[in-house]
């Protein structure tokens, strides 16, 4: 279908694209191993977060948590904020985003264009400063509503009801699903759906491993595991460093012509790992992975050009996924 009543109705239904050049070659006579990319940048605001934003707002409206004219407060480092800003605009809410100041300039510009207000929490102060900033805002505005994507079941449900069924419809022979691990909504929702429908499916998480500056300030006792996370949905979980993520992001555009953000590189790195394992084991594999967004918002990082060392340096201290 190519005609929709409104932009909100155009959410989801993204293309699944084969990667014939990046898929590993198999020995003659061996079963095929194929990679498939789900292009989530083809959503209304250009990222997979449109699905979660739409479901979370709808659920909040239906439950009475959100009323017309309300202000939504969301801590976000980018894509969720942009998606919520669009949904809030079309559904009649005001959006205030709290975000660390070390996110890319494009993201803040986009948020403002969509009409969101931004409150920065200093990057240098680390999580403690972010907590202090957030506590202060919440205390000053007790009437502002939080959707809290890390613990909101509607986030995972969006993927259980849309992303998962789309994948199964487009690729009934799917053997592996690979996606990034952040709020865990994509993996939990899609993973649960596919596990119910496909015997033996592998659900694989690719988690970004940032530069030292991001972790440096973090105390282990202040760690955080999103409420949505259920380890039993996953079969494996990879940690992918900045260098590998950049390398794969570049490889994806060079070899297959897909211009993606760096979190895609991390996901592709894990997808290639399982694809090559399948080749070695002589198994058939249809590996579908998620491209959460395109690269436009990250051009200002400079990490698409220069050497890998320069790119790694450019992304040090940045939340690139």
């Amino acid at each position, binding site marked *: 279908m190519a005609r929709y009543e409104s932009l909100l109705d155009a959410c989801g239904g993204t293309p699944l694209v084969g990667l014939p050049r990046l898929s590993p070659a198999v020995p003659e006579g061996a079963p095929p191993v194929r990679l498939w990319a789900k292009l989530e940048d083809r959503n209304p605001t250009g990222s997979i977060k449109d699905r979660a934003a739409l479901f979370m707002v709808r659920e909040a409206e239906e439950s009475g948590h959100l009323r017309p004219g309300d202000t939504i*407060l*969301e*801590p*976000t*480092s*980018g894509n*969720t904020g942009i998606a919520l800003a669009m949904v809030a605009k079309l559904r009649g809410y005001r959006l205030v985003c*709290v*975000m*660390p100041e*070390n996110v890319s300039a494009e993201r803040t510009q986009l948020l403002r264009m969509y009409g969101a207000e931004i409150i920065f*929490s200093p*990057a240098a102060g*680390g*999580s*403690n400063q*972010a*907590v202090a*900033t*957030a*506590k202060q*805002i*919440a205390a000053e505005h007790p009437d502002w509503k*939080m959707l*809290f*994507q*890390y*613990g909101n079941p509607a986030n995972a449900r969006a993927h259980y009801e849309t992303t998962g069924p789309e994948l199964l419809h487009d690729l009934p022979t799917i053997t592996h699903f690979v996606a*990034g*691990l*952040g*709020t*865990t909504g994509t993996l939990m929702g899609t993973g649960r759906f596919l596990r119910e429908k496909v015997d033996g499916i592998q659900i694989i998480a690719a*988690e*970004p*491993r*940032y530069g*030292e500056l*991001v*972790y*440096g300030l*973090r*105390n*282990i006792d*202040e*760690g*955080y*595991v*999103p409420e949505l996370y259920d*380890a039993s949905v*996953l*079969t*494996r*979980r*990879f*940690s*992918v*460093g900045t260098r590998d993520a950049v390398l794969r992001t570049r490889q994806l555009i060079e070899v297959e012509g897909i211009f993606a953000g760096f979190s895609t590189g991390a996901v592709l790195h894990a997808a290639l790992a399982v694809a090559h394992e399948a080749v070695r084991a002589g198994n058939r594999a249809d590996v579908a992975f998620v491209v959460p967004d395109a690269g436009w918002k990250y051009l200002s990082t400079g990490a698409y050009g220069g050497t890998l060392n320069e790119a790694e340096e450019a992304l040090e201290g940045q*939340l690139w*996924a």
Partner: protein
Amino acid sequence: MAIEVRVPTILRTYTGGAKIVEGSGDTLTELIDDLDAKHSGLKGRLITPEGGLHRFVNIYVNDEDVRFLGALDAKVKDGDSVTILPAVAGGALGFAAAAALLGGL
């Protein structure tokens, strides 16, 4: 050859500031015991008193989360690369603000 272990900044007080240390063992438990013998106190930050991996600690063997490889029983061998990291969510700093707003921290 030994097993290379990457230590996060917050735990380098136990390694004399070293970012990378070396250890040995056939399982993660043996490796951690070996590390603790050289860097006293490290084990206590990784393992709970009940003997499980600390909830907010992630350990990866060759970039794969050990919780899916048998946790503390995960096999390790010379030449492996082990990474210890604090558990954080995507949008690493945003989450802290979110948790705070909900009174979670």
